[in-house]
């Protein structure tokens, strides 16, 4: 700075004070400076507009400008020049305020010395320069950020678009291969069939890669919503068994799927759990040698309110270094994929995220040469516990202290089960994975949302707007309004007692008049079963459920329900056959049966076989309820033969 020509603007109305500054300046070692003095703010502003100055010495006691007004006025017009305010006032806070408002320093007029002045000027300019640079860098960073976001978005869209275009050709491949394999295009030899199975299997692998890529994309965009609901794990096992058995057969590996019997109900998104199982099992099968064994097992852990699901293989095992990084995205272990598609190494990282989304945890154990076990937990359907897990997860995800809001969603109590299901799915979509959505009755949901108090109204109105929009576009008539009500917001702390207490009070179901009657509901469609059971329970009935005719007969014999509601088209044994057997057995002959079927043709047969009523699907709930009430009141039909 010394040796550089310093241009200083002094804004001081008092001639004596101005002179003091001039003298001090002349005595500094700064030999080359240009001092311009002006007595008013207006001329100062004009001068600043016309010329470039390095620093402004500004008297705070200018006539007509109270306090820091002069400072603010100059800053409004000029952001680049350093400003040092001069004051006769000993007020410390004024000095601090001046710096906040844009001055670099504050000098007391009585303390102006040559060396002091020089130092102040030097540092003021330096600070100003740094400030300007900081602003420029920030702007540059913002620009780059925007550009990066754009690129990222483009990449996502590309992946999404390309990925799902793979699906049609894959389907065509699989379908034609299946047709030839099944002999529909001419006889096939054993070997040909085997080769075609390999083609089919590889097409499956490609499909899994596509699924994984799309899932990763959604997970990143925070767009993967979960539909958690009370689930029976053996439902999930039944769903994945055929796929896994086929894969194991091709690689000639023994696959044992042995879930424990009578597992308690869990709370999760069954499709996601299915994906996790498939990902883990596919890995296990890949890493096994011929004639190896893969075991899929479960362990009931009531002490931690969860079921552990595990996959154990006796393959090559994983080294400790790899094991540490096994759940990282794109991490791949070498040397195992003997005739298997390598993939991108996404499967395990996705599995981990999905387990986490379902309030569980995932573990991997392995011994080189012996094999590996991957296991994950699925929580019981214990609402209290679930709230705890949800809150724990929110706390871990958020860097800053988080709060949770209890929101109650309700609809008209006379809502039909199918409509209730649509609302359930919608609510899970509208509230994201961080939030817990629990349906307690057909018309009521309790939501624990990751949301601070000030955002609650916004969130709720957002949800309602989406619902209205969806409603408007519904061709088959609108569904009832959803009412959202906040019960309070609490910070998430170690115990969360208040929140849990508030949650519990909501969960206590209202006293429903018990009708002291047990209904056995039989349908292979589990969604339908769940919806109808909920509705019947809400009306005070006790419910038993079965998914096929054989199970229905067994339960009817054991429990002697007051009535049976039975669908016709079911696996193992259909409704009509079951009906015949029930009527034929003395211990179940007296139980009235209401047959439900989509086909009118079954009516005559049903009634002939001894059903009390035949209801054609789709049927209104009122009709169903009337029929039930009738048969319960009149267990033996008047004209029964």
């Amino acid at each position, binding site marked *: 700075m010394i040796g550089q020509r310093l241009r200083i603007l002094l804004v001081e109305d008092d001639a004596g004070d101005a002179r003091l500054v001039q003298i001090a300046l002349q005595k500094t070692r700064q030999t080359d400076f240009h001092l311009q003095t002006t007595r008013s703010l207006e001329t100062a502003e004009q001068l600043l507009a016309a010329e470039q100055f390095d620093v402004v010495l500004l008297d705070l006691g200018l006539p007509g400008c109270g306090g820091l007004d002069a400072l603010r006025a100059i800053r409004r017009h000029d952001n680049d020049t350093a400003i040092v305010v001069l004051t006769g006032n000993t007020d410390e806070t004024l000095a601090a305020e001046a710096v906040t408002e844009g001055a670099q320093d504050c000098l007391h007029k009585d303390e102006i010395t040559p060396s002091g002045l020089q130092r102040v000027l030097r540092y003021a300019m330096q600070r100003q320069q740094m400030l300007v640079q900081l602003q420029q860098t920030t702007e540059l960073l913002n620009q780059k950020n925007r550009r990066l976001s754009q690129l990222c978005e483009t990449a996502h869209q590309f992946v999404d678009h390309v990925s*799902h*275009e*793979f*699906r*049609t*050709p*894959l*389907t*065509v491949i*699989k*379908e*034609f291969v*299946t*047709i030839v*394999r*099944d*002999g*529909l295009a001419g006889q*096939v030899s054993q070997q040909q*069939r085997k080769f075609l199975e390999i083609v089919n299997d590889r097409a499956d692998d490609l*499909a899994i890669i596509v699924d994984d890529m*799309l899932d990763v994309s*959604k997970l990143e965009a925070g*767009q993967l919503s979960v539909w958690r609901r009370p689930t029976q794990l053996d*439902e999930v096992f*039944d*769903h994945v*068994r*055929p796929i896994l058995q086929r894969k194991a057969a091709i690689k000639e590996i023994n696959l044992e799927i042995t879930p424990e019997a009578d597992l308690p109900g869990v709370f999760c998104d*069954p*499709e996601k759990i299915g994906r996790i199982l498939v990902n883990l099992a596919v890995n296990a099968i890949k890493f096994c040698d011929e004639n190896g064994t893969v075991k899929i097992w479960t362990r009931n852990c009531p002490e931690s309110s969860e079921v552990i699901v595990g996959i154990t293989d006796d393959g090559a095992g994983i080294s400790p270094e790899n094991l540490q990084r096994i759940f990282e995205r794109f991490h791949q272990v070498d040397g195992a994929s003997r005739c298997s598609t390598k993939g991108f190494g996404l499967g395990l990282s996705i599995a981990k995220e999905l387990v986490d989304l379902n309030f569980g945890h995932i573990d991997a154990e392995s011994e080189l040469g012996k094999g590996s076990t991957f296991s994950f937990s699925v929580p019981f359907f214990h609402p209290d516990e679930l709230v705890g897990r949800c809150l724990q997860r929110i706390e871990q995800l958020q860097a800053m202290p988080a709060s949770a809001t209890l929101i109650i969603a309700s609809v008209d109590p006379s809502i*039909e*089960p*199918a*409509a209730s*299901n*649509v609302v359930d*799915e*919608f609510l899970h*979509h509208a509230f994201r994975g961080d939030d817990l959505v629990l349906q307690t009755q057909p018309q009521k949901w309790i939501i624990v949302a990751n949301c601070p108090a000030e955002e609650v109204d916004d969130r709720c109105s957002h949800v309602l707007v989406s619902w209205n929009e*969806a409603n408007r*576009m*519904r*061709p*088959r*008539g609108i*569904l009832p309004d959803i009412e959202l009500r906040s019960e309070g917001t609490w910070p998430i702390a170690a115990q969360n007692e208040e929140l849990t207490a508030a949650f519990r009070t909501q969960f206590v179901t209202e006293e429903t008049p018990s009708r002291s009657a047990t209904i056995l509901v039989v349908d*292979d*469609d589990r*969604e*339908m079963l769940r*919806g109808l059971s909920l509705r019947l329970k809400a009306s005070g009935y006790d419910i038993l459920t079965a998914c096929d005719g054989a199970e229905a007969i067994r339960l009817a014999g054991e429990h002697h329900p007051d009535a049976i509601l039975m669908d016709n*088209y079911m*696996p193992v044994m259909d409704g009509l056959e079951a009906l015949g057997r029930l009527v034929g057995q003395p211990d179940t002959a007296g139980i009235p049966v209401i047959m439900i079927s*989509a086909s009118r*043709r079954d009516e005559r047969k049903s009634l002939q076989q001894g059903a009390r009523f035949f209801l054609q*699907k*789709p*049927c209104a*709930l009122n009709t169903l309820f009337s029929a039930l009430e009738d048969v319960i009141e009149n267990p033996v039909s008047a004209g029964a033969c």
Partner: protein
Amino acid sequence: MSPKKILIADDDRDLVRVLQMRCRQLGVDVITAHDAMTALTLIHEQRPDLVCLDISMPAGSGLSVCEMLSSDENLSSTAVIMLTGSNDEETIRRCHELCAYYVLKSSDVWQRMEPIVCELLEIQPAACGAIGAENAQEPQEPRYFRRGLSGLCDVISR
């Protein structure tokens, strides 16, 4: 009784062809379309019992065809299967809202579709004759989890 009729619409002709083969095996008549406009026209003219639609087709989307069907008195009871490569939540929910069955491409499509087709058209699944012995023992694939609840959907309209 005249045989049941299915309309299959997808711009991928190979896919249409293979599904057509499968449906014919069940004794069902098949009409085909490769874009949304033709599909809609054929549905109006020939009143199929079941319609299988791709979502991304030229001249309109399968979803809008489905919407148009629901708002037409005479056609609103036509059963619809939406066969698509898209598995995002929006699409699935939209299918449910329209009371259509949803089947994802690149899963075992015919294995998922056959039970739905058979139940909706009230016909028996393909006889085991033409199929290899081991397939007959294959465990019956349970319905796709998120089947549209077509069974009770009409109730909602009241």
